[in-house]
């Protein structure tokens, strides 16, 4: 049963990920990315990470994708199609890199992980729940949590400053 769920979600994620980088129209790419991220959220649930699955849907599949779609619609569909064929060797180079990495990765996997069996550790019912992850966030990881909220604030202000008209105007 778990295997069936995993295979369905994995298939969904990989196919939509491939579609994301294949569509010509960025709007379709964004929608494929939503499907991929939702599939990943389902996989998080199978990994007993319920809180993270909720975060994935809220932050990624909602906020980030809305941002993407707004920007795509704002800029319009790019008509400058000649530029996409400038570098013909890139697909071959990319394929080669991916093949090499797959070979390396499977070799590492077949060798086995030291100190880590392939079977899962025994966990309690509240593993990955909002309460336990929240406890970790405000106790053990309090400083990184505060720092990352600061980073989020800086990123927000930075984004607002960058898009302001006249920011890039030269001031001699």
């Amino acid at each position: 049963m778990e295997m069936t769920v995993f295979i369905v979600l994995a298939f969904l994620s990989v196919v939509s990920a491939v579609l994301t980088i294949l569509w010509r129209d960025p709007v379709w790419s964004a929608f494929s990315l939503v499907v991929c991220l939702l599939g990943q959220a389902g996989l998080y649930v199978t990994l007993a990470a319920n809180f993270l699955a909720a975060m994935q849907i809220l932050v990624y599949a909602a906020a980030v994708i809305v941002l993407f779609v707004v920007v795509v619609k704002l800029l319009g569909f790019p008509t400058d199609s000649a530029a996409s064929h400038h570098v013909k060797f890139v697909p071959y180079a990319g394929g080669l890199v991916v093949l090499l990495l797959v070979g390396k990765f499977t070799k590492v996997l077949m060798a086995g992980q030291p100190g880590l069996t392939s079977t899962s550790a025994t966990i309690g019912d509240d593993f990955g729940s909002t309460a336990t992850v929240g406890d970790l966030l405000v106790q053990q990881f309090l400083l990184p949590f505060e720092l990352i909220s600061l980073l989020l604030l800086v990123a927000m202000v930075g984004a607002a400053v960058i898009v302001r008209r006249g920011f890039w105007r030269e001031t001699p």
Partner: protein
Amino acid sequence: MIGEVPLYYYLLLSFLLFATGMLGMLVRRNVLIMLMAMQLMLGGANLALMAYARFRGDEAGQVMAFFVIVLAAAEGAVGLALVIAVYRHFKTLYIDRFNTLKG
């Protein structure tokens, strides 16, 4: 709850997602789709973190994945702002056309 799906299935899937994102980053010339490919790569890395957290029975991995999600949101905001700013200057979204730093 699980136990039936081995760890390396999750790792292989996370690698596939990462490789897809990397390929998109290398092949596509549209900056918006390159940003989306970057989100794919972050998602793949996140899945590996989550799988290790589950199979080691350690929730610290999930906290780390939470930080990655926040970072991805921040990166998306700044990246899209940069795309808008650059589009205003060059009037195109194709990265091959962005051929001057100053101007």
